């Protein structure tokens, strides 16, 4: 299976709305050991000026990966997930994600390069609220090892 480099530059249509729930944020915060009360206690979050509990800095990956699935689960893209290694990840928060947010993600395939059989895929998930206000940008790079290695 060969990664199809012609997917580079592609922009997908907006993904289905992701509705952020308090209990999901609590579950995620607990899993990564993010114990700040602003993740779990609405009054602590409000005291910091937020409308409801806020997400830990890396929670946006949960939202982004639903959009990324459009690329990775497309058989024509030729990405064998058993040979994928996560290379790097970056979150830029235009504002914190909070419970009650209804988020819409547009996935961009920023680049696909192949060198000596190793494919490097960089995606960018632009996450916004339903009114179109930017919320977070998630840039992720994956390496796909060649079949023989």
């Amino acid at each position, binding site marked *: 299976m060969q990664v199809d480099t012609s997917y580079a530059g592609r922009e997908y249509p907006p993904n289905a709305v992701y509705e952020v729930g308090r209990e*999901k944020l609590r*579950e*995620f915060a*607990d*899993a*990564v*050991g*993010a*114990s*700040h009360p*602003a*993740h779990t206690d609405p009054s602590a979050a409000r005291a*910091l000026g*937020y409308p409801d509990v*806020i*997400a*830990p*800095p*890396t929670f946006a*990956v*949960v939202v982004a*990966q*639903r959009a990324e699935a459009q690329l990775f689960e497309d058989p024509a893209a030729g990405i064998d*997930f*058993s*040979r994928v*290694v*996560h*290379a*790097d*990840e*970056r*979150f*830029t*928060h235009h*504002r*914190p994600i909070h419970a009650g947010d209804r988020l819409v993600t547009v996935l961009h395939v920023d680049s696909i390069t192949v060198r000596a059989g190793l494919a490097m895929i960089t995606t960018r998930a632009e996450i916004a609220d339903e009114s179109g206000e930017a919320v977070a940008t998630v840039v992720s790079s994956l390496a796909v090892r060649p079949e023989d290695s």
Partner: protein
Amino acid sequence: MSDDLTVGTEVARREVTVDRARLVRYAGASGDFNPIHWNARVATSVGLPDVIAHGMWTMGAAGAVVADWAGDPGRVVDYQVRFTRPVPVPDPGAATVEVVAVVGALDAAAGTARIDLTVSLDGARVLGKAQAVVRL
């Protein structure tokens, strides 16, 4: 958070332990069910030494250290890492990851500090270019 920050100052240090149960919990919370993070047979069949932690778990655990120091997780406006080395998680037992946060740069005009993270397992770094930008 101190008002008189200087570049090079260590602002936080924490040891975080991770066992198999923690990885299962992260898999469920994040939706990343790749079996290399919970099934030793699958992990070793693809050439890994053992089950390895999700890179995103390690990134998240280190991010919590910065968020606690900032006093408000919403002040972490940018956070990036490279995944340079896997974190094998034994069974029985646990792996202990050390997180050290140092002021890497200050931007007075933007009102931000760049916090550089050294995240290591048994003295070897598992993340590269781990940097968080915090609004002061």
